[in-house]
């Protein structure tokens, strides 16, 4: 029985068709802050933001589940991305040799899961790679057909991820390896879409703002230009048609988070990187266990089975120590995740992928495509899931008790930024 003052491990405000009526109903009766937090769900869709560092209030009490805390910032961290990645692969190698564990790499053809494949191919022997299968879909083949031909087809057993969720893989004895946190290490696609529409945001600004913003367009990863100089454009990027104040409201709330953390955030890309490295990180880490799994208890799935490739302390330290040096992004989409591109190129020597690969929304596409909800009631459907309590029980939006919990907390939520 969920009580109003209980603490959650995870929550999701989402407009997915199934939950729209509920959230719109709550919004009607909510105060300013409650409306804002629901509108954030509409704008970001879903709003699963949870802070790992600095202040970011939610309507309800929230704690981080163990192992997802942010490591201490270490400006002297000196390992390269390649070194960290090779070391990660050696951990898998050890689990194969010492415990004969079997692994299913969730492969999308995107940069993150291709990094995983490259690391395993580089660091494991042919014999050890027999413990690795590739769970994938047709999306992956067309996203990186050259890699598919050269390194996967005929070399690994292939499982159809379109018909296998994590629970099925686990029941078959495989530990799923997901690269779902790759974006967290390099920055968010929310930034990419803003950079690429930069000129469109300038169109109806006054002459002074337009000139000023045009002059710093090429400095999104420069430590000479503070993100606050882009405030006008950020606010427009997050604006909502029905609420002209929303963009600024979001900006101010997030700046408060930045200013109450002790990790250096300076450039515009730092701003967007921090968004996913800090407040979106938990979602990337555990959404698979919650939404892509129906039968295995969430706690068991997270801690005993699923391996989040990028959720290592060294990856996170690398990420915090490598801002604005070209390792995360140059100016646009085709240089995003540059350190990962270099790591892949070292193996596949494909200059096209290196120079032109673009971050795609692989996960959303694959999972929507993959949903097989046979045996679930409507109320247990992934689209009906709201969150996790501190015992890792899934909370469902149709549960009256959960609805009361949400209403009571949203209605009393007050603006603190």
């Amino acid at each position, binding site marked *: 029985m969920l009580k109003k003052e209980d603490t959650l491990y995870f929550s999701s405000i989402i407009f997915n068709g199934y939950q729209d009526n509920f959230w719109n109903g709550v919004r009607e009766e909510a105060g300013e802050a409650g409306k804002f937090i629901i509108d954030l769900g509409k704008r970001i869709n879903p709003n699963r933001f949870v802070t790992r560092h600095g202040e970011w209030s939610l309507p309800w009490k929230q704690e981080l589940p163990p192992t997802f805390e942010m490591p201490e910032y270490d400006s002297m961290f000196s390992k390269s991305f390649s070194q960290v990645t090779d070391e990660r692969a050696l951990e898998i190698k050890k689990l194969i040799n010492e415990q004969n564990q079997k692994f299913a790499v969730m492969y999308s053809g995107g940069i993150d899961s291709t990094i995983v494949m490259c690391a395993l191919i580089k660091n494991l022997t042919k014999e050890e790679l027999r413990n690795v299968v590739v769970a994938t879909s047709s999306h992956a083949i067309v996203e990186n057909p050259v890699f598919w031909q050269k390194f996967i087809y005929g070399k690994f057993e292939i499982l159809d991820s379109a018909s296998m969720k994590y629970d099925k893989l686990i029941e078959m004895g495989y530990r799923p390896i997901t690269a779902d946190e790759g974006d967290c290490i390099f920055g968010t696609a929310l930034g990419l879409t803003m950079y690429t529409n930069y000129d469109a945001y300038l169109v109806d600004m006054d002459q002074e703002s337009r000139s000023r913003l045009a002059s710093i367009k090429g400095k999104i990863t420069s430590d000479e230009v503070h993100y606050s100089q882009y405030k006008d454009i950020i606010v427009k990027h997050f604006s909502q048609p029905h609420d002209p104040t929303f963009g600024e409201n979001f900006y101010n709330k997030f700046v408060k988070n930045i200013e109450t953390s002790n990790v250096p955030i300076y450039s515009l890309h730092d701003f967007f990187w921090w968004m996913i490295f800090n407040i979106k990180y938990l979602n990337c880490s555990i959404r698979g266990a919650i939404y892509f799994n129906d039968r295995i208890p969430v706690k068991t799935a997270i801690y005993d089975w699923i391996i989040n490739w990028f959720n290592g302390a060294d990856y996170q330290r690398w990420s915090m120590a490598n801002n604005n040096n070209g390792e995360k992004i140059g100016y646009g989409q085709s240089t995003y995740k540059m350190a990962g591109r270099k790591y892949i190129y070292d193996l596949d020597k494909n200059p*096209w992928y290196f120079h032109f690969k673009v971050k795609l929304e692989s996960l959303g596409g694959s999972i929507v495509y993959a949903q097989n909800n046979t045996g679930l009631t409507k109320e247990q459907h992934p689209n009906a899931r709201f969150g996790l309590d501190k015992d890792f029980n899934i909370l469902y939006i149709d549960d009256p008790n959960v609805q009361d919990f949400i209403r009571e907390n949203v209605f009393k939520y007050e603006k603190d930024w």
Partner: protein
Amino acid sequence: MKETKIYDKGPGSRKEPWLTGNLSQHARFYSAWYGKKNANAIYAPGIDRFLLTDNFDLWLTMETARILSSKVPTQVFLLGQEVPEFDNTNCLETTIIDKRKFIINGSNILTARQVPSLHALREPNSVANVGIPRDYQTGTHKEMLHNLRSYSLFVLRNIHALAIADSTKNITPFEEMIKDYIPEHVPNIKLPQDQSLAERGIKKEIKSILYTSLSIKEALEKIENVWYNYGYNLPEFRDMYYYFMGLEIPMRLKEQSVDEKYFTPRAV
């Protein structure tokens, strides 16, 4: 392989005939083209510029974009009359100003898909020349942007040349017809794509080469091998393909002889 010689030496001809635009054989083939402005374009979200424009068949532009998606995500735009004119000399400097409204299955085109969907661009202020993308102004990125342009136009020319030659010279395009039109009644007999010796037909072999090759040189070598190994019985089909490519027929293909005991100019 000997270096392929350039067939097209007409006005504006450069080293690579697919860079000669509408001065080439394939452009003259489309007799309904009266020199109108560009009609279709392929946009590459990754570089945020147009890769190429074309005046002719929209669906061939679409297929070109599909093939190029093995190298770079692509989207196809039908250009309205109001859209400011740009062409293959400046498309890499030309972008769509506001990409926010182009959505595929809930995602913006910038991050939605590797493979192309079709969109229409009609507004007068929708595109602008903003220069070469900043990430591609120096070093290997600059070099690869040049390669991308060449490869894109090379694929486009191939798709035109194949479509023209196949439609003109292939008299047995039966496999697709039978499998698509009467799928419940496909017999267990050989269903040809064409009269070549290639299991999947010449057209599909070449498209597969275009999709998987990493350079024009690699593709041209493989295409020559396909004709050499599987298409020597179809000299007219082959010659027409090379003609519309703007390339001279490679010498070893010219020198191939056809054993008339097994191959006749007639289908039956």
